[in-house]
């Protein structure tokens, strides 16, 4: 099992364009990495079925904590065939997870800057945002984790990006989940069409 040290930032379209320009000039361009993701928000865990549409691969991932519950995410994942994505979603929905599912397309471009992988993204829920990530092996010590966090913080500062705090992330994801629940309820209560 790998450990991801992951931090995030949301920003305007203008800030997005400036960041991409800087990363293209001074970072390594790892290319387009669009994804269609099915998220299952479980108590204290996050299960994902990811169709990497740009890369032509797919995977199933279980993250050991949710966004807003710390920067270190224990992660177990395995590859599946892209053609098996609908079946995987069907199975998870059938075993009782359907009400916890959100579906989103992520327009994503990956860069490497200062030893940190930076995914610059747009999705409906998050708008323009970026994920800063350092991958550690599961034997990483607390000092290794602290060092990775510091590295991300330094890189974000160098790029002029303000990272979201854990309470900000927790509030944002809670607001999104509440809005999604309300939207689903509205859809179910919609008056019939004549």
């Amino acid at each position: 099992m790998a450990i991801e040290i992951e931090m995030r930032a949301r920003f305007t379209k203008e800030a997005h364009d400036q960041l991409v320009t800087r990363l293209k000039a001074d970072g390594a361009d790892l290319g387009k990495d669009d994804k269609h993701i099915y998220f299952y928000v479980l108590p204290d865990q996050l299960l994902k079925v990811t169709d990497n549409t740009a890369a032509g691969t797919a995977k199933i991932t279980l993250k050991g904590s949710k966004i807003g519950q710390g920067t270190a995410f224990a992660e177990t994942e395995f590859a599946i065939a892209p053609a098996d994505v609908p079946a995987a979603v069907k199975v998870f929905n059938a075993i009782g997870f359907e009400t916890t599912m959100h579906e989103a397309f992520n327009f994503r471009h990956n860069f490497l800057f200062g030893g940190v992988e930076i995914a610059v993204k747009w999705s409906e829920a998050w708008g323009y945002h970026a994920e800063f990530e350092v991958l550690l092996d599961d034997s990483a010590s607390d000092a290794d984790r602290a060092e990775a966090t510091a590295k991300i913080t330094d890189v974000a500062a160098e790029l002029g990006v303000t990272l979201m705090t854990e309470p900000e992330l927790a509030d944002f994801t809670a607001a999104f989940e509440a809005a999604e629940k309300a939207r689903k309820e509205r859809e179910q209560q919609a008056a019939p069409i004549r």
Partner: protein
Amino acid sequence: MSTAPSLIELAAHGQLPLHQYVDHTTVAWIVENQPALPPTSPRALRPSSQHLIKRTEIPTAWMLDTRLYTSIHGVRHAMRTAALAAVLAEANGLDDVDTATAILAAATHDCQRRHDKGDQGHGDRAAIWLAANADTVWGHFGITATPRRVVQAASAVRLHDVPYTAFTADDRSDYSRAEHIVDVVKAADALDRYRLPKLTWWPDVRHVRQPALDEFRSLAFDLVVISEKAQLAGARSPEAVRFALAEKGLV
């Protein structure tokens, strides 16, 4: 990539099917044929308009034929037309109420189509449907359906597929009740014609009453290209359009 003939090939041979779905070849052709357009000045929509165009993802159940939801007259066309209606309404000085009516009419104008070809009378059908379902539709947008708003939106929907030159006395009477809204919806619908697979079908100022149409062509073209590419990349139709709206700074 599919080996099925593209929309541009089918259009060139007069063989377009009843249900038409955009393909990679057609989008590449649209990009290759980008006209020299003056850039549209960046403009921030009013918060009330931004709020409404975020709600233009009409439910699939509103479509007379759900096969059209993702076709060339489906939800992407509806959402882009609604966004362009918001831009045109504000540029023409319409107030919040009339702008909302134009956005709502633009979002629903094609929902009662039977197919993607000529389908004469689809404007009439959509106008009747809109009046019958006014509370549901206006409720979807979070606004109140007053008789005046319903009559104006239905008039714009009914007249969207009737050329100005073919207006009858009844059409002129309906037009007089909602002149500015009808003009905005017809022009917005025309601007989204950059999605169509034949150059002679692209926006033509002679068919609209929007003197400054040229000012908005660049925005309309970009909305088509960004959202159609996004949809082909795997995004759902509504999120593809919302991505295009974000890229153009409209939301």
